[in-house]
């Protein structure tokens, strides 16, 4: 009965209640959204790479190197020359190495030039190796292995032919029409940027550039033969025989006289990323908490200002036998109704937003997220919001309680 009364009372003032509801919905949306994206970003980034001891690229900040080599965010300013890579790969402390050559794209997805070692040694998540869902690793030139998302999105199957473009845009002006690639393999989904990548051999990578040069500079007498070693690569991943050697080798690479390089430990770089983001996260959390507080206060204000016009109503409830505490309960119930609806709406909004935006996030930022925005922290936040609402609703509720205890039943004029 009381719930029905609370509901009808809110419905009677649906205009102002709707605005309050909207502000609570939006602030809950902000709080949940920020927290969920934050935790999911961490999780997603952390599981992108594992088992790699060093990432080596041209001299840059460790964060930048990590972002462009592993997460495919941004671009390398410079590369690593092939002889330098060859020399380091041959170091006796190195168990394996994976060269990475980035820079091309196919319909918005990155093309990665690498070797078959990539499929053997690369690990993600909890030391999980890459797995081919169908087909096999590229062998010869002009063969490509697709990430799961690429294959699903672009509808490619084994044996399909596709054309790779130079540059990163969705639409490229220089399609390498003369060098079609054949799909030889499709990887199983990993939930990492690998899914958004097309993998070709380093040789093929060189070949398409060579043929591009041939085509555009036909007059030039200088033609390079196909099947050449690449001049340079973007970066490379290193696995060591003994992890104990990691700092020694890192220092040696960083001090290399032949070429200015940066070697990073992925874990350390990730930690730096988190600490860089921590301040921004704290500011975002604080802002969303304040926004939430403001909207809860707005709700309390709405109900408090409605108390004056509801004096008669409250006196009536008292006249028919409602105790003052029933009035208190009624006001609290109204607040809880608004808050719960706001929380539910905010939650659903985040959920819908994530469902709608997950592809965009994964394609543009390599963020693979769980779209259901509930975890321990968020559940705690929701509980805190509820308690906060009850406490703030106490302002109008206690006001109503007091006035209804002191007030007379006499109504009207």
């Amino acid at each position: 009965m009381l719930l029905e009364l609370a509901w009808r009372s809110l419905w009677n003032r649906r205009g102002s209640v709707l605005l309050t509801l909207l502000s609570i919905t939006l602030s809950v949306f902000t709080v949940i959204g920020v927290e969920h994206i934050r935790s999911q970003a961490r999780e997603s980034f952390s599981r992108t790479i594992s088992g790699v001891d060093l990432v080596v690229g041209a001299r840059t900040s460790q964060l930048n190197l990590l972002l462009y080599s592993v997460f495919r965010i941004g671009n390398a300013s410079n590369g690593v020359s092939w002889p330098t890579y060859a020399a380091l790969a041959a170091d006796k402390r190195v168990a394996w190495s994976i060269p990475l050559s980035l820079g091309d794209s196919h319909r918005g997805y990155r093309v990665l030039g690498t070797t078959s070692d990539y499929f053997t040694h690369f690990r993600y998540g909890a030391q999980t190796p890459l797995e081919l869902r169908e087909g096999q690793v590229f062998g010869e030139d002009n063969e490509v292995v697709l990430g799961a998302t690429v294959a699903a999105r672009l509808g490619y199957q084994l044996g399909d032919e596709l054309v790779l473009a130079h540059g990163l845009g969705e639409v490229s002006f220089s399609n390498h029409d003369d060098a079609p690639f054949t799909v030889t393999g499709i990887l199983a989904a990993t939930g990492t940027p690998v899914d958004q990548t097309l993998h070709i051999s380093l040789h093929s990578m060189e070949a398409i550039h060579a043929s591009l040069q041939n085509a555009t500079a036909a007059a030039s007498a200088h033609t390079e033969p196909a099947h050449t070693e690449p001049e340079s690569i973007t970066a490379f991943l290193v696995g060591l025989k003994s992890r104990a050697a990691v700092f020694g080798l890192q220092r040696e690479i960083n001090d290399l006289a032949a070429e200015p390089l940066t070697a990073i430990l992925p874990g350390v770089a990730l930690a730096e990323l988190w600490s860089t983001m921590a301040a921004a996260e704290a500011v975002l959390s604080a802002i969303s908490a304040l926004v939430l507080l403001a909207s809860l206060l707005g709700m309390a204000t709405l109900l408090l200002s409605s108390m004056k016009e509801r004096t008669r109503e409250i006196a009536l409830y008292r006249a028919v036998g409602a105790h003052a505490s029933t009035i208190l309960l009624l006001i609290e119930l109204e607040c809880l109704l608004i808050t719960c609806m706001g929380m539910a709406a905010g939650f659903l909004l985040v959920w819908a937003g994530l469902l709608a935006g997950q592809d965009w996030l994964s394609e543009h930022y390599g963020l693979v997220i769980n779209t259901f925005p509930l975890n321990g922290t968020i559940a705690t936040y929701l509980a805190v919001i509820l308690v906060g609402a009850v406490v703030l609703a106490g302002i109008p509720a206690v006001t109503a309680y007091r006035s209804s205890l002191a007030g007379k039943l006499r109504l009207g004029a």
Partner: protein
Amino acid sequence: MLAIAIHDLLFKWPGADAFSLAVPELQIACGEKVFLLGASGSGKSTLLNLIAGVLTPQQGSIRILDTDFSQLSARQKDRFRARHIGLVFQQFNLIPYLDVETNIRLASSFVGSPGPVSTSTSTSKSDANAAPQRMRALLEGLQLDPALLKRRADSLSVGQQQRVAIARAMINQPALLIADEPTSALDTDARDSFMQLLLGLQANSGTTIVFVSHDRSLASGFDRVVDMRQLVACQPLQPLGTTHAA
């Protein structure tokens, strides 16, 4: 048994110069129809709040239906009021945004479980099945169309609203009905039919009625007229110069 028994009552609103009310003696028998005559400012509103158990006197005793209010907690008084006392006011008797039926049902929703309060006239809530019938009978007695039940209270005319207010006040079959200037917002025709319906309803139920008005012309159907000025004639706390003896 007496419906209302007041003895040596003294009530004073907080504040040094605040209004005070003293009622040496008032006895109203069960089933009696009493017309309480008083102008505004005579203290009748305060008296009704004391009888309804909303205000607590500083001195003296109030017994309603043989129940001593000084023995009851605030919550028990609220429940007692819900069960045994029907109240009709001058206007704004109904929650405007609720439909008529919900407004009437409001009165029964606060009756609660049988507490320590019990009198011979107590209506138990075991007759919940009878409630819809009772509502229908009440509406019929008050000449209200049952189709009005689903209408919002504020879509009714003032005359209809006042009659719904009686239905609301009577739905729990209270032993005592208090009506505070219920006709002052009505025009002459509506007022006459209101009085007729009210007294007709009383004739069937035998409810004790305390009808408060400043309009002596309405007193015809009542057993007894009590003048507020006589009732509170002796006011020891009244400041000098404000007493207007009859």
